[in-house]
């Protein structure tokens, strides 16, 4: 980033403009491909997309539904921001959501009579603890046993799903269901229901909590000593270690925080849902909504910045909510929506590098868009390096200087 005092003629608007225009263009291209798919299926893309937009943003109820859908994405996304910035790839969101949900459910089952003003925060804390533990384990495995976190988090997802299935076959099941056993708990204590927000929609406290967590995440990452440490470790673990920072502990902390955020998402998913129970019927993703994966996408759309993840999650949540309306309107298989989401993700994520290049080009001298450069804003990630690149190296190992000879 060069400072060029030459021409201050323009746009402080360039960067935000490009920042929005490029991904929006990418979304437009993705939707065009989606329209082609719809036409091939004999459906009308215009009415379909109209239904999608209407279903996502078309009214207060729809906006509320989108916000509700986005809340878990945001929560997981904030956790991802913390983890990735500390140099750890957390693919274990699904498992952390599940364990967080289990812990919060147990709290509600154990203390059903507690007044709402106590029970609600308790279940959320329970979720955070559950998810935090489930994240801390891969963190410890990485820091102290050198186990790569991609492997451990994938495995922990499987273990958590199986554990949920186990719990809901007997121990936590709704005893009242009679001859027809079903993998769900009883309707949990009403005192644990997330309170509805004023306005006569289904909007509930979970949305507020998600935003709060995003703000807290921002404060943690960018305004606290811990955050400085985590980001330093993420940027260069070796240098941090030589500088005396507790690298191993930081890794565990990062994954614990990340897991805790996902755990809160789990609690919100259970206690903000319309069923008010923990359900595993047909698989854990019946209640997680794959937020553990979608949250990663939201975080990356938000450039790993907790506050930017808010609009990113809202957008993604809108796509998911609107997708259902599109399906009902056009009567196409719901699978189309999944494929469309994938295409949107592909195009947007492909466009991000282009965006940074365009911004750099627009800001280079001679294009007339130059602006006086202030100090590089630490909250904006450097886009030269791959955001994930620094995670590839396990801590405590030095970079190999020559290619390995085969030693299989």
């Amino acid at each position, binding site marked *: 980033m060069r400072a060029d005092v030459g021409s201050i003629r323009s746009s402080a608007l360039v960067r935000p403009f490009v920042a929005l225009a490029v991904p929006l263009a990418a979304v437009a291209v993705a939707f065009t491909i989606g329209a082609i798919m719809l036409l091939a299926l004999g459906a009308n893309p215009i009415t379909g997309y109209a239904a999608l937009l209407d279903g996502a943003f078309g009214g207060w109820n729809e906006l509320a539904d989108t916000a509700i859908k986005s809340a878990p994405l945001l929560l997981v996304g904030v956790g991802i921001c913390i983890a990735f910035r500390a140099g750890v*790839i957390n*693919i274990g969101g699904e498992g952390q959501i599940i364990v967080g949900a289990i812990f919060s459910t147990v709290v509600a089952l154990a203390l059903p009579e507690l007044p709402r003003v106590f029970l609600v925060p308790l279940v959320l804390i329970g979720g955070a603890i559950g998810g935090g533990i489930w994240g801390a384990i891969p963190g410890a495995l990485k820091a102290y046993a050198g*186990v790569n976190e991609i492997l451990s988090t994938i495995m922990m997802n499987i*273990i958590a799903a199986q*554990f949920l299935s186990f719990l809901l*076959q007997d121990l936590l099941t709704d005893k009242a269901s009679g001859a027809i056993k079903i993998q769900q708990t009883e309707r949990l204590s009403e005192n644990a229901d997330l309170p509805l927000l004023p306005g006569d929609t289904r909007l509930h406290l979970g949305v507020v909590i998600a935003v709060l967590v995003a703000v807290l995440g921002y404060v943690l990452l960018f305004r606290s000593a811990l955050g400085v440490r985590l980001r330093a470790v993420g940027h260069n673990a070796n240098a941090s270690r030589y500088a005396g920072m507790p690298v191993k502990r930081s890794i565990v902390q990062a994954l614990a925080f990340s897991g805790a955020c996902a755990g809160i998402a789990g609690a919100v998913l259970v206690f903000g849902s319309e069923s008010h129970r923990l359900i595993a019927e047909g698989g854990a993703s019946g209640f997680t909504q794959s937020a553990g994966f979608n949250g990663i996408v939201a975080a990356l759309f938000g450039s790993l910045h907790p506050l930017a993840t808010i609009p990113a999650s809202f957008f993604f949540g809108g796509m998911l909510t609107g997708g259902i309306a599109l399906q009902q309107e056009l009567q196409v298989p719901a*699978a189309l929506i999944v494929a469309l989401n994938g295409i949107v993700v592909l195009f947007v994520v*492909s466009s991000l590098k282009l965006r940074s290049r365009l911004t750099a080009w627009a800001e280079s001298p001679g294009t007339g868009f130059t602006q006086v450069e202030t100090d590089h804003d630490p909250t904006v990630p450097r886009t030269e390096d791959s955001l994930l*690149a620094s995670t590839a190296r396990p801590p405590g190992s030095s970079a190999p200087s020559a290619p*390995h000879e085969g030693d299989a």
Partner: protein
Amino acid sequence: MGDFFTVSVLVATLASGIRLATPFLLAGLGETIGQRSGVLNLGVEGVMLLGAFTAYYVTLETDSPTLGILAAIMVGLMMGLVYAFITLVMQAEQGISGIGIYLFGLGFTDLLFQKNVGTPIPISGLGDIHIPLLSDIPKIGEIFFQHSLPVYVAFALVPVVWFMINKTTFGLNIRAVGETPEAADTLGVSVNGTRLITILIANTMACLAGAALALEVGIFQQNLTAGQGFIAIALVYFGAWRSYGVMLGALLFGIVQATVLQWKTLGIVEGATASLTAMAPALLTIVVLVIVSRRVAAPSALTRPFDRSG
């Protein structure tokens, strides 16, 4: 428990474990090659599904599993080109583009299946090939030498991949590009060219893994792979980016799965406890890794796009 330790049951369990390991192994080997060159593909699951559906559909229409496999290879090459474009040209964030490919593969195959096939129609798979002489060895023969073609191919590829990476010039290029791409570049090795080829190989093998799965079970269904692609990725780390390591990981996972199945069948575990035992493969994978605990470094350039101007 005594029932389990009869010879015939053990033989069947090991054979089953080998069959279950095959898709992990094929996809895992491909991903290993890709990662050694510095490219991470989290979308293996989606690519496997595309390969599975292609093989299924072509076999259904033409009644020829061979054509099905060939079609899957073509789709693998196509997906390789797509992923290469996304990764090398657009330099997209590799973890996320992978998730995009996963979602796309999952939804698109389900969509095509529902529109073109609808109700599941079984196809004829590839029959088992009994290797002459070897398959007659009592017990050993049943475990190892009475499988279908993709199983043999998968395990045969393990030494082939080892040889390619460690004993050929191309393999040297792969490793150089994965560790120190800048240095490789100055030495005249085309970083993106090498990565293009590894990406093509990786995606083709993932499609083959899916095709093998579809032909093995003789049918297709939404989300046929049920998470096997992600497990394959995890096994690459388990195997420390060595083909033999990946093989051991795949076998560990597959055999434990097969054992759990047998225990359930024999009634050794039942009811809710059975759900707990189903955790065993994942749990054991972590435990073994902790015990073995060699800290092998990942390829240094993993997920880092190469930009000559950078």
